[in-house]
């Protein structure tokens, strides 16, 4: 209990890391809600991997252009973010454009993207051995390395994403639920798709540079899947998913600190436990109602 209070104090040594963790944990599910509803979960696997490839590529290119010595003077986090955003947005827009041409190959394209992105990440890393340690740390998502500056960026950008998702939720719901109706209503469905994908891409890119591909994918999918089992309205679905993500991130942080285990996997494990409990509780509820 004492540790819990210690973590909540502003002078806690890892205060920025904890805030960053909870921020990623709560915003990724808000975006993940649309992954689940649009049945794009596989895309949630491929995009963080593409983001990781973008980070590795950015480091490789900067080393090739600037050389090893000057590369060290660059802000590694900004470089990683630039590569991550570029690859994630390119990937999501390309996959979305291909999806509109025909659904039958969607899974195959996402699978190929995942495999290619994974292979490229390894190859880019192998080609830039001097920066490998730094890159591996970024690729793993070193949440504990969150600084006040990166936290400010995270809060600013994710704040805008949340605002967009909230203010335009009516349009995103309409285009996601009934695209034909949206077009009949005069909405430009491609524009709203693009805006949603932009919000998703930016969130994933920031999530990966802050917490790594595993944590980002985990928070994109697990909290919304858990929330969907216990909610009947869109607004509560989004809020409960964000709440589960935030609580899981905090509890995961506590477990990692208390038991000295890796932070990212601890957070995903806690979120998965919540999913397990929710699923069990729901199954039990159904069984009891059937029995009654």
């Amino acid at each position, binding site marked *: 209990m004492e540790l819990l209070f210690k973590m909540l104090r502003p002078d806690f040594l890892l205060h920025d890391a904890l805030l960053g963790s909870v921020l990623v944990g709560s915003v990724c599910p808000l975006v993940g809600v649309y992954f*689940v509803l649009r049945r794009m979960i596989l895309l949630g696997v491929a995009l963080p991997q593409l983001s990781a490839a973008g980070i590795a590529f950015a480091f490789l290119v900067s080393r090739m252009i600037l050389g090893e010595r000057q590369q060290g003077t660059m802000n590694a986090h900004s470089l990683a973010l630039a590569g991550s955003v570029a690859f994630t947005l390119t990937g999501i827009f390309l996959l979305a454009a291909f999806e509109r041409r025909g659904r039958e190959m969607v899974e195959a394209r996402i699978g190929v993207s995942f495999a290619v992105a994974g292979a490229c990440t390894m190859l880019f890393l192998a080609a830039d051995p001097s920066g490998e340690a730094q890159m591996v740390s970024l690729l793993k998502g070193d949440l504990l390395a969150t600084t006040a500056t990166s936290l400010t960026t995270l809060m600013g950008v994710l704040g805008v994403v949340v605002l967009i998702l909230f203010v335009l939720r009516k349009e995103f719901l*309409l285009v996601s639920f009934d695209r034909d109706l949206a077009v009949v209503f*005069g909405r430009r469905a491609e524009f709203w798709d693009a805006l949603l994908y932009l919000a998703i891409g930016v969130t994933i890119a920031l999530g990966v540079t802050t917490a790594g591909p595993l944590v980002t994918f985990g928070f994109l999918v697990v909290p919304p899947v858990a929330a969907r089992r216990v909610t009947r309205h*869109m607004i509560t679905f989004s809020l409960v998913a964000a709440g589960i993500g935030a609580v899981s991130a905090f509890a995961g942080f506590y477990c990692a600190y208390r038991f000295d285990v890796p932070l990212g996997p601890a957070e995903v494990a806690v979120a998965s436990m919540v999913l397990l409990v929710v699923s069990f509780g729901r199954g039990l509820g159904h069984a009891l109602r059937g029995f009654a």
Partner: protein
Amino acid sequence: MGAPLVALRGASLGYDGAAVLEHVTLTVEQGELLALLGPNGAGKTTLLRGIAGLLPLLAGHLEYGFDRRRTPPGYVAQRETLDPIFPLTAHEVVLMGTYARLARIQPVGRRQHRAATRRLAEAGLEAIAEQPFSTLSGGQKQRVLIARALAGEPPLLLLDEPTAGVDPLAATAILDTITRLHRDHGLAVVLVTHQLQLVRPLADAVLWVEEGRVSKGTADDLAGQRMLGTFGGGERR
């Protein structure tokens, strides 16, 4: 009679540049109830989607006799196209119909909620307003979608097989709802169906779609001429 609500002139409709229907000329008049009939794959849904503005014309002209931007037509697609994974109640689905008249960032307010409640009541669905849409029966879902289409107060209602896959009792309830709206509010209706007998007493006219052509007549004409095997070979419209 005033200007037609919809006028298609020499229109070709299809997908990826390939025409399914060609040289289609027809009008939908104010307060008219038109049934779109024809064999499977003849292009009934293609024609309805064309009228709704969902398919760009390959050739010809489409004109609306109303401000389509401010009051778009009410459109009810085949209900199988809607994914049950969305956490939406019947009321929330109907509420979506009010988005037609809302600006992009304008939030849904009390007025829209009242309109959705009223439309649900008109369809006799108040009791299921808070039930998840995905758990409703086929007939109930279809009536919810009709209520949604009407929530935007459209001058024209377009329905794609509203009685498909529902039991006869539910089909009758759906058609009763459509007839009442058509009669009481003077709403123009175009509906795709396979069941001539079901719409025969209701339809002002029938559009027969076959082999890339569209012919217009009355339901009685069609019933008689189909018995003689001649319908569809008449005037090309």
